[in-house]
């Protein structure tokens, strides 16, 4: 179990600053996710750890060792690639044994290790297949087995699931997490999928434009976004001008699941206890039913449109477009941001 420390990493490509002064520490055994939109620098950071990019400034440490000048093939990191990068000219067995051979492990010992890794990746029996006989998901399992069989100090995963279909993605992310728990290997995981990040990670670093905006546990990131970017990128958020709720000079945000609806004219308040909730009258514009929940789009005038989620809706109380409602906004669910800087106030 090895920690990773990134100290003031900066990296520019011609015309772009890919990373700006990034510092973070990943604890031994942690499943750490770099989350952000495309072009935010998350992959650059991962590739810097792998040694495929050399940072312009700053240091990368694995445990106590500074690896700035260690070439990629000696960094002892196991990387899983977005497009699998399974060697097409080798069988599954040869792919997985490749890293072992480079470490001088051959013969019976290699066979055992490969067998164990393949069993973990649920690929036993596929040893003699070639990659073109495998599905995308299976190829990615080979990529995973190949990376973990060498027992690297850290596992690096570059959007490993983004080329898979939605159902498989959900299945595989649970598997990856299970395997990582069993191995206990420190893992850095890159994704642009916020839901995936929330599900899979011990901690998340949210990045944008080469800057880390927030580091925290999934629920911290979700419940306490540090700025409007994090609030908007992770989960869904209603942004409301402060004036609507009588708080001028701030930008307010509230999650759709925190809001509830009451029929127009009914009594409100008291439902959530504590400070009395704000109430905004509005008209349902549309309702979107997605099985476990229904999402209402409520127009509240003055250009304010709110998304409101209701879980486990009963067929009888699904509102249709045109219904007049009151949106109930619990006071403690409201987050306030500085409209200029976007930072929390």
């Amino acid at each position, binding site marked *: 179990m090895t920690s990773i420390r990134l100290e003031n990493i900066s990296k520019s490509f011609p015309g772009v600053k890919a990373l700006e002064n990034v510092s973070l520490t990943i604890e031994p055994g942690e499943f750490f996710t770099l989350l952000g939109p495309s072009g935010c620098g998350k992959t650059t950071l991962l590739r810097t750890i792998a040694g495929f990019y050399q940072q312009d400034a700053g240091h990368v440490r694995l445990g106590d060792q500074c690896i700035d000048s260690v070439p990629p093939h000696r*960094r002892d990191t196991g990387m899983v690639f977005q*497009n699998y990068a399974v060697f097409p000219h080798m069988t599954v067995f040869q792919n997985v044994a490749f890293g072992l051979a480079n470490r001088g492990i051959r013969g019976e010992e290699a066979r055992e290790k490969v067998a164990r890794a393949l069993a973990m990746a649920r690929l036993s029996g596929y040893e003699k297949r070639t990659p073109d006989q495998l599905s995308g998901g299976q190829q990615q399992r080979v990529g995973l087995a190949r990376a973990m069989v*060498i027992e690297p100090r850290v596992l690096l995963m570059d959007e490993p699931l983004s080329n898979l279909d939605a159902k498989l993605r959900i299945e595989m992310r649970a598997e990856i997490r299970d395997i990582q728990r069993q191995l206990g290997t420190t893992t850095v995981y890159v994704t642009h999928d916020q839901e995936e990040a929330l599900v899979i990670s011990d901690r998340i670093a949210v990045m944008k434009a080469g800057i880390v905006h927030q580091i925290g546990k999934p629920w911290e990131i979700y419940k306490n976004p540090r700025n409007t970017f994090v609030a908007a990128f992770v989960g869904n958020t209603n942004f409301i001008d402060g004036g609507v709720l009588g708080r001028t000079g701030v930008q307010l945000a509230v999650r759709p699941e925190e809001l509830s609806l009451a029929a127009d004219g009914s009594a409100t308040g008291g439902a959530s206890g504590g400070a009395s909730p704000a109430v905004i009258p509005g008209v349902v514009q549309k309702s979107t039913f997605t099985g476990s929940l229904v999402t209402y789009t409520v127009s509240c005038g003055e250009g304010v449109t709110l998304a409101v989620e209701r879980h486990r809706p009963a067929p009888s109380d699904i509102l249709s477009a045109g219904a007049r409602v009151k949106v109930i906004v619990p006071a403690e669910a409201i987050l306030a941001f500085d409209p200029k800087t976007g930072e929390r106030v």
Partner: protein
Amino acid sequence: MRRVERLNIWTLVTILGYAIVAFFLVYPLFNIFKFAFIDKETGILSLSNFGEFFSSPYYTVSFLNTLVVSVGGTLGALVLGIPLAFFTTRYRIFGKSFLSTLAVLALLSPPFIGAYSWIMLLGRNGFLRTALISIGIQLPPIYGPIGIILVYSLHYYPYVFLLASGALTTVDRSLEEAAENLGATGFRKFFRVTLPLVFPSVTAGALISFMMCLSNFDTPMIIGGNYRVLPTLAYNLFTSEVGERPGLASVVSIFLIVFASLVIFLQRYAAGRRKYSSSLINRPLVKRLKGWKSVGAHLVSWLIVALSTVPLGIVVLFSFRKTSGPVFHPGFGLESYRRVFFEVPKTITNSLIFSASSVVLIVVVGTLLGFVLARRRSVPARVLDPLLMIPYIIPGTVLGIGFIVAFNQKPLYLLGTGLIIVLAYFIRRLPYSVRSGASILKQIDPALEEAGINLGAAPGRTFRKVTLPLMLPGILSGAIMSWVTAINEVSSSILLYVGKTMTMPIRIYLSVMDGYFGPASAMSTILLAVTGLALFVLNRFFGLKKESLVG
């Protein structure tokens, strides 16, 4: 409603295709087979010609010789082509595009120019050889297998280079990174991951080179000395003044066709194996090397290209040397050019007229047939497809022999005419032009044609108004390539020419054989200049796709 197959222009084109195959391929080949399998004395079907071939070591040794020089030339092409491709695609090499242009020029120039240039350097009285002897280094003259292999390697390595570079730039970067991530670097990464990934393309390049070595005629003729290979043997047996042996020449021709078919078969097999090129999301990085590594990579790359272009430079240089008869004198002059322009101007006009006429034929017929093959999936069209590829496996020498035996009697008496040379150029180039015509078409959405027809234009009109304009750039660049190969053609025209239909490459060949290197150099320089000019035009106006050179 029943669909009625109407007689439209495409049916006529298909018929034309069959006519071409029948008259210019099947008929000449049939004559070769007839000569080979019919006993000269008795006139009955027999294997006596084959028996005679195998009973004499004089003949059988050329079998082995052909294999030796073809394998040697191919290995040489691999040894030169692979490093050059690797260095120029993976590392930043100064003058990279200049190098690949020079390599292409070397490939398009006729091999015999390289051959006699090496004779001027390392032949019996070669300048380099005499210079080396004067400082005490004894080098054997370059005639024989070594010379042939040298010329082949330096001439055909661009095939390997172009195909391997193409593949190397489409290998997914992640694969090499994965190798590195798993602890493999340098040679290990190259031999375990990179090379296997481009292996199909390298094999294809090697097989094309092998094919070219196999059927090449002019190089062994010039630099081979007494070293006989199958194409030169066929030529000698067919034209020898001491008793022509068309039967034996036909036997040799059949061997050559069988050999070439085998190579094609292997090539198809290699091409059919899965290619590993990816969707190009992750193009390979081009690394900047430092220090001695950079010097080494530059040295190797430049040296390979220099070795293949130096012969061309030597020829240009010597064309401006003072000369009288076969002897060079110190100093420079335009004597050689004067002789070329005043003594054999007809050769130049012949070359221009023959190559231009053949290009017109190639473009018109190739485009029309290409269209038929690409768009019409009728049975006759599908059968025509492989038939039109036949010329690919017929060495020029064999086609020449076939044409002579086929067209030496009425009603198709064509011997001694320019037309027979034009037809030879046309047939030899046909597979390429048909293929390129078809592949250009495949990039054009058939819906465009359907729209044309839907709007009331007949198929022929739709082709002229919609398809043809879209195909034009591809057709023109194909035409230039065809012209370059036609104007440099030797191996069939050497059998088909008579005095009044002599072309530039043949004049060069004859001058070299007579030891008149001056005029030969002048004429070669003219050929090189027009080849270079064509290449420049291609590059400038159509964006030369180097991969297209390798079919």
